[in-house]
């Protein structure tokens, strides 16, 4: 009567300490340039090395420019963070995918794409969106810098076991509803704290019907409702996705692995601390109107009224709408947009670019829109070029940039100017996330495409 989570967690527990903290063995550690330098410095100070360098993989992604990647990084502190990562990896024999190299990209895109991420594994990275990898049926979550150091020093971290939650999405999705809409819908229902203390398994027929990449979008944003992470039991979709990838098992090993992975599911009588079921037919294409990912509504809907909220909630609600310069009761459709950002570890994969390109094909970018179409990895960029997506984009007046975190967070050159509205396929719409005073509207690639060609918020279903 174990959950999928229990099975993987328990099989990775080296020891349980007094007070319930577990020594959890980590199969894969991913690192990037922002949260790792102090961890390496810590190891040096202690005079110890990396315990299992072969299980660690690095890729610079946050600070890198998405144009002219062959040139040195202009911003000195960004350049230093990236150079420090390269040096730390070289000194410790850690695999790194440097800027511009074939396998570089956002760490949460390249883990699955290279086959490094596999079912049944435990995976950590000093980055909250590590939850993405859970889509392949593993336990993956973000950690702090001290924990990055722990994992480098011992391939283990100390962690108490979270509570379990299962979210089922049953039934058939409406046309034009994608996985981003599912997760924005769930977060809008549960709130940004609804998953605090839990690790979530996503299940149900609507989740099963999703492609591997679509599942990643769901698990990626599971942390935006406060959950420690999200996961989906592996199935034939998972195995088909992984087969033949660079670091996936090969030959006889592959057969054995699939046999093992096929057993990774929650038992029929498994009991979750909390279980919630949604009807897929209730979900519409979504967009956010406020300053946290829980403030989402159907794109053809109206901004909810604050009636019935307590006074503290009313104050923060008014503050959020004030920041966005929106009013209760406003229709979202027709509101002007200045920027469109397609990319990030949430929606920067090839399927997202296909969705966007298919929609804009034969149409033209609206005059008032500045669009940044940013592949999540070098491989995604390569595929987009080979499949002719870049040509379609250019024909419609868009430009395909180079891979990186880009406008997801205001840490590299791609920042949204103050006061401007950006429909973004990324995951956070906090105040200032995309640049000081920038206003973010989170949505899926289809809603982003509709805004990009009309220049205003548009329900894509009216254009199909």
């Amino acid at each position: 009567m174990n959950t999928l989570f229990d099975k993987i967690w328990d099989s990775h527990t080296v020891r349980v300490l007094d007070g319930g903290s577990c020594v959890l063995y980590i199969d894969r550690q991913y690192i990037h340039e922002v949260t790792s330098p102090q961890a390496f410095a810590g190891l040096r100070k202690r005079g110890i090395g990396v315990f299992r360098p072969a299980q660690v993989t690095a890729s610079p992604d946050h600070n890198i420019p998405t144009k002219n990647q062959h040139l040195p990084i202009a911003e000195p502190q960004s350049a230093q963070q990236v150079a420090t990562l390269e040096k730390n990896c070289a000194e410790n024999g850690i695999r790194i995918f440097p800027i511009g190299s074939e396998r570089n990209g956002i760490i949460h895109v390249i883990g699955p794409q290279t086959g490094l991420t596999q079912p049944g594994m435990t995976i950590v990275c000093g980055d909250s969106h590590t939850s993405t990898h859970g889509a392949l049926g593993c336990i993956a979550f973000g950690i702090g810098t001290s924990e990055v150091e722990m994992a480098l020093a011992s391939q283990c971290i100390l962690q108490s076991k979270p509570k379990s939650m299962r979210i089922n999405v049953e039934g058939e999705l409406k046309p034009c509803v994608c996985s981003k809409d599912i997760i924005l819908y769930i977060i809008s229902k549960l709130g940004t704290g609804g998953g605090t203390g839990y690790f979530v398994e996503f299940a149900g027929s609507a989740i099963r019907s999703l492609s591997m990449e679509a599942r990643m979008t769901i698990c990626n944003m599971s942390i935006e409702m406060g959950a420690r992470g999200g996961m989906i039991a592996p199935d034939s979709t998972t195995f088909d996705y992984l087969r033949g990838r660079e670091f996936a098992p090969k030959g006889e090993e592959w057969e054995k692995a699939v046999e093992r992975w096929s057993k990774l599911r929650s038992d029929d009588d498994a009991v979750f601390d909390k279980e919630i079921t949604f009807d897929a037919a209730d979900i519409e294409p979504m967009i956010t109107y406020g300053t946290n990912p829980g403030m989402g509504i159907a794109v053809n809907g109206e901004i909810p009224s604050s009636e019935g909220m307590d006074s503290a909630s009313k104050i923060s609600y008014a503050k959020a709408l004030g920041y966005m310069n929106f009013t209760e009761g406003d229709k979202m459709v027709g509101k002007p947009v200045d920027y469109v950002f397609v990319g990030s570890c949430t929606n920067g994969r090839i399927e997202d670019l296909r969705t966007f390109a298919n929609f804009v094909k034969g149409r033209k970018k609206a005059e008032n829109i500045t669009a940044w179409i940013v592949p999540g990895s070098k491989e995604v960029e390569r595929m987009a070029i080979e499949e002719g997506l870049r040509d379609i984009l250019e024909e419609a007046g868009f430009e395909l940039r180079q891979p990186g975190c880009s406008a997801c967070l205001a840490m590299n050159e791609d920042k949204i100017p103050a006061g401007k509205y950006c429909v973004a396929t990324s995951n956070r719409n906090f105040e200032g996330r995309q640049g000081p005073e920038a206003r973010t509207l989170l949505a899926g690639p289809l809603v982003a495409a509709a805004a990009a060609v009309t220049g205003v918020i548009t329900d894509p279903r009216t254009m199909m």
Partner: protein
Amino acid sequence: MRQKFTTLSSTVVPLPIENIDTDQIIPARFLKATTREGFGENLFRDWRYDKDGNPKPSFVMNSPIYKGEILVAGKNFGCGSSREHAAWAIDGAGFRAVVSSFFADIFRNNALNNGLLPVVVSEEMLAEIFKAAEENASMELHIDLPAQTIEIVGTEIKESFEIAPYKKQCLMSGYDDVDFLVSIHSEIESFEKR
């Protein structure tokens, strides 16, 4: 290995302000660094220094009389973002313990992970400490980690405090989680072979 923590007698730096958040402890603009060192200089940066970097005489850390290894702060200390830099900054400024009547969860863990002891006392005791420190800057607190007690030296005012057994052991042996995990490498190795 860190300095072992068993008992500590020290004068205090009192900061009778509630809800001190991590942005006050270490402002976000100092986070692009690649080392853990140097955050101590920027602890309470905007309270401690003016725009030109001159010390503000009114702030307690700039006072000639209040010195010590124990920071005493108002309720809900360390709220806000999860940045571990906040604990690094307090540790870096030479403090070994922080006393308050309530700590934000993540800060408390971050502090413990960095060998800094958070001591939770009652509201009454906190008020007594602030009063005693105000009356006499050379007032000392005595913290006894093995016995889990804290007292105002030379008075009857004494309380016990809670700490998880594993964390207590780490502090007393000067170990942190990394040292502990390194010390069980052979157990981890046999786990890998299973």
